[in-house]
C-alpha cells in the first residue's frame, strides 16, 4: 500500500472519520505491516503531545486576568468564536447521520437482509436487524434424489422457500414449518405455497399430519384435500389427467372441482379420471413410507461409510502423514483421540470437555465442541517443510471473532494457526521472527474470501489448507474446491514449520500475558489429517469425493 493511503487511513482513524470499509483496510495493513504500526504509534505520540499542549495553553488563557493585553490571546478568542457555529452545525450533522443510520437499519431489517460488513457486525446492529427467513419447510432426509431445475446442493437440512420443486428420482422427506410431513417420491413435482399449503401437480406424495398441523391443505389438479389429522397419499398423473387420493389413517376432506365435498376415512380412496370421480380402496403398499426411506438412506450411508472406511485404512499408512485423527470413540478410554498414522502413540490426542456424537454417517463418530473449554489437545514433534490440514467439520455457528480449527498453544516461530473468522472467511497464519529484530514477530496471514454463509452452517464440509515453505504459498479449499491461493509478501524461504503443543477446536493455553481470548469452535469434527507436504488439488478433490456424507 502506498504511503499517502496509509497516512490518510491513520489520520482518519485519529480523527474518527473512517468508514467501516476504510477501518477494515487499516486493520489489514496494520496486521501485515510493522512499519505502519510504527507510523501509527508515532502519530499517536504527536497527537497526545499536541492535545496536552493545547489543553495547557487553554488553561493558561483561562487564568489570564480579564482585559489582558496579549495579542495572541485575543486572536485565539476570536478564532474560537468563529469556529463555534461550525461545531454546533457539525454536532447537528452528526445527529442527522445517526438518525439516518437508524432508519437504514430499519429498512434493511424489513428486507430481511443481514449485511456483514468487514469484521464488525456488532450485537447492537444484529439486534436491530433481526434476521428474517421466507422458508416454509425443510428437507430432513433423502435418498438417491436428483432435483431438477434447482441449483445444487439440495441437501438434507436445506430450507425450502415457497416455489416449485421438481424431483427427477429418489425419495425426499420434507417437513413443513406447520408440522406436516411429506414424503415425495420421484419423479414428482411439488409446489410449496406456504407452511400450510402445497400443490402436488405430478407424481406421488405421502402426507402425515400431527394435531398442530390439522388443516394442512394439499392440492392436486381437480381436487383440494384438507387434512383433519391423519395420514394419506396422493398419486397424480398429469399426462393422463388422472389423480388418486388414499387415506391410510384418520380423516380427509376431499373437495372435488366439480361436485360436493367428500369425507374420506381410513381405507377409503377417491379416483379422478378427467371430470369423473369414483370411490376406490386405499392401497398403502403403493406408497413408500418414512420407514422405507430410513432403510434406504441407512443403506446408502453404510455404502458411503464402507467406502470411506476402506480409504482411511489405506490412507493412515501414508508416510507423509504427521497425524491422522479419524475420531473413533474408544469405550475403554473415552477421552482418547487416537492418532491412526504410523501407530505413533505420542501423537494421540486427548479430548477435554468435547462430547462424542454422530459423525457424517450414523456408524461414524465425531466430537462436538460447544462450551468455551471444549478442545482436543495434542503434541506434535518435528520440523516440516510444508503442511496440509484436511478436516471434516460441521460448524453450527460462528460465535467468536476467531473460531478455532487448529492452533498451536503459543504462536511462536514457525507455528501455524488455522481458524474461521466471524464473518465467514477462512484464515491461515504462521509466525516467524523479524529478521532485523528477533524479539519481534512477523505474521504471515492468508485469508480466503467469505466461504461460510448461513447455508453452510449445520452441515458437514471438508476444509483444507496447504502451505509450502519453498514457495510461501497457502491454498485453501472448501468441499474439494480451491477458494484462495496466495503468497505472503512477508514470506522468506527456508523457514521450518513446527507445532509442539497444540489443539483442535480451541486456543486454550496461550502465552503469558495473553487475556485468554475465547476462540472455541461451535460445531463438530469428524476427521483431521495433518500432512508434512502440500497435497495437490486433485488429491484434495479425491478426498472430498470419498469423504462426502451423501
Amino acid at each position, binding site marked *: 500500500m502506498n504511503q499517502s493511503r496509509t*497516512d490518510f487511513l491513520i*489520520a482518519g*482513524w485519529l*480523527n*474518527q*472519520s*473512517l468508514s*467501516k470499509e476504510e*477501518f477494515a483496510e487499516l*486493520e489489514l495493513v*496494520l*496486521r501485515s505491516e*510493522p512499519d505502519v*504500526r*510504527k507510523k*501509527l*504509534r*508515532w*502519530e*499517536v*505520540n*504527536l*497527537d*497526545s*503531545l*499536541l*492535545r*496536552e*499542549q*493545547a*489543553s495547557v*495553553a*487553554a488553561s493558561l488563557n483561562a487564568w489570564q486576568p480579564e482585559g489582558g493585553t496579549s495579542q*495572541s490571546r485575543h*486572536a*485565539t478568542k476570536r*478564532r*474560537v468564536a468563529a*469556529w463555534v457555529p*461550525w*461545531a454546533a*452545525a*457539525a*454536532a447537528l*450533522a*452528526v445527529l442527522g447521520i445517526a438518525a439516518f443510520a437508524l432508519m437504514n437499519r430499519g429498512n434493511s431489517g424489513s428486507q430481511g437482509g443481514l449485511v456483514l460488513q468487514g*469484521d*464488525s457486525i*456488532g*450485537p*447492537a*446492529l444484529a439486534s436491530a436487524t433481526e434476521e428474517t427467513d421466507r422458508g416454509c419447510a425443510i428437507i430432513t432426509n433423502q435418498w438417491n434424489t436428483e432435483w431438477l431445475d434447482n441449483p445444487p446442493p439440495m441437501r438434507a437440512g436445506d430450507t425450502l422457500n415457497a416455489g416449485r420443486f421438481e424431483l427427477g428420482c429418489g425419495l425426499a422427506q420434507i417437513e413443513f414449518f406447520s408440522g406436516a410431513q411429506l414424503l415425495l417420491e420421484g419423479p414428482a413435482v411439488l409446489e410449496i405455497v406456504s407452511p400450510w399449503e402445497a400443490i402436488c401437480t405430478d407424481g406421488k406424495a405421502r402426507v402425515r399430519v400431527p394435531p398442530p398441523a390439522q388443516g394442512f391443505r394439499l392440492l392436486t389438479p381437480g381436487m383440494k384435500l384438507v387434512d383433519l389429522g391423519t395420514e394419506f397419499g396422493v398419486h397424480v398423473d398429469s399426462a393422463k389427467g388422472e389423480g388418486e387420493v388414499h387415506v391410510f389413517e384418520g380423516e380427509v376432506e376431499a373437495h372435488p372441482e366439480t361436485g360436493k365435498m367428500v369425507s374420506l376415512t381410513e381405507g377409503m380412496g377417491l379416483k379422478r379420471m378427467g371430470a369423473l370421480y369414483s370411490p376406490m380402496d386405499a392401497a398403502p403398499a403403493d406408497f413408500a413410507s418414512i420407514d422405507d426411506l430410513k432403510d434406504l438412506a441407512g443403506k446408502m450411508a453404510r455404502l458411503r461409510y464402507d467406502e470411506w472406511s476402506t480409504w482411511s485404512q489405506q490412507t493412515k499408512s501414508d508416510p507423509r502423514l504427521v497425524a491422522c485423527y479419524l475420531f473413533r470413540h474408544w469405550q475403554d478410554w473415552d477421552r482418547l483421540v487416537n492418532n491412526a498414522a504410523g501407530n505413533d502413540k505420542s501423537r494421540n490426542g486427548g479430548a477435554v470437555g468435547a462430547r462424542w456424537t454422530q459423525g457424517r454417517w450414523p456408524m461414524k463418530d465425531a466430537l462436538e465442541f460447544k462450551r468455551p473449554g471444549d478442545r482436543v489437545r495434542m503434541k506434535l514433534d518435528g520440523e516440516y517443510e510444508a503442511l496440509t490440514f484436511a478436516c471434516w467439520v460441521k460448524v453450527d455457528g460462528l460465535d467468536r*471473532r*476467531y473460531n478455532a480449527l487448529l492452533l498451536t498453544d503459543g504462536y511462536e516461530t514457525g507455528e501455524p494457526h488455522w481458524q474461521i473468522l466471524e464473518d465467514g472467511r477462512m484464515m491461515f497464519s504462521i509466525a516467524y521472527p523479524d529478521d532485523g529484530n528477533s*524479539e*519481534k514477530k512477523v*505474521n504471515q496471514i492468508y485469508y480466503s474470501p467469505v466461504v461460510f454463509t448461513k447455508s453452510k452452517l449445520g452441515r458437514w464440509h471438508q476444509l483444507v489448507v496447504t502451505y509450502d515453505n519453498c514457495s510461501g504459498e497457502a491454498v485453501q479449499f472448501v468441499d474439494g474446491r480451491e477458494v484462495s491461493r496466495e503468497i505472503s509478501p512477508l514470506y522468506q524461504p527456508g523457514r521450518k514449520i513446527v507445532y509442539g503443543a497444540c489443539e483442535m477446536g480451541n486456543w486454550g493455553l496461550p502465552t503469558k*500475558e495473553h*487475556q485468554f*481470548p475465547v476462540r472455541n469452535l461451535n460445531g463438530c469434527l469428524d476427521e483431521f489429517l495433518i500432512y508434512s507436504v502440500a497435497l495437490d488439488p486433485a488429491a484434495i478433490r479425491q478426498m472430498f469425493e470419498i469423504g462426502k456424507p451423501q
Partner: protein
Amino acid sequence: MPEDTPSTPRIEIEAPPETYEAFVRLFVAHEGRLRGFLRSLLPDWDDVDEVMQETSIVAWRKFDQFDRGTNFMAWSAAIARFESLKHLRRMSRDRLVFNDEILDLLAEESLEETDTLEAHRLALCKCLEKLDPRQKELLHLAYQPGVKFHEVAEKAGKSAQAFYKTIQRLRASLLECAEKHMRKEAHA
C-alpha cells in the same frame, strides 16, 4: 458480579503518605506515555480518559505488588492493557475497534518501543518550540479540549479543507523534524 461491571473505586487510605507520594510521582511521570499507549489501542481520547481513570485506581490498589526496582511503565501498561480490553468488551461493538490480534501486536510493540517513543516525544517537544506563534496557535485551536477536530474541520466547507490540510502539513513536518532530530542524536 459480572466481570464487566466497573468496580467501585475503593482507595485504601491506610497506606503511609510516602507510599502515596511515590505512587503519584511515578504515575504522573508516566502519564503521558501511558495515555499514548492507550490511544494506540482505543478508538478515541474520551475512551483513553475513562480507561486512564480505571488504570490509576487499579494501579494504586495493586501498588504494593509493584517491585520498586523494576520498570513502572511496563507494570502500569500491563494494567492499562487489561483495563482497555475490559473497556473494549464493554463498549458497543459497532464502534471501530481493532481486533484482538492487532491489539496484541500494537500493545506488545508499544512496550518494546517505550524508550524510543519517549525519545520521540522529547524530539517532538523541541520541534514544536521551533514553530512560529501563528502555527502554534493553529495547533492549539485544532487540539483544544472538548472539540472534535474532524467535526469542526468537516462542516466548514472549503476553509475547513484548507484548515485540515494546514494541520496535516504541520503534523507531517513535526514528525519529520523529530525523526531527523532522533537520527542526529543516534549518530552523535
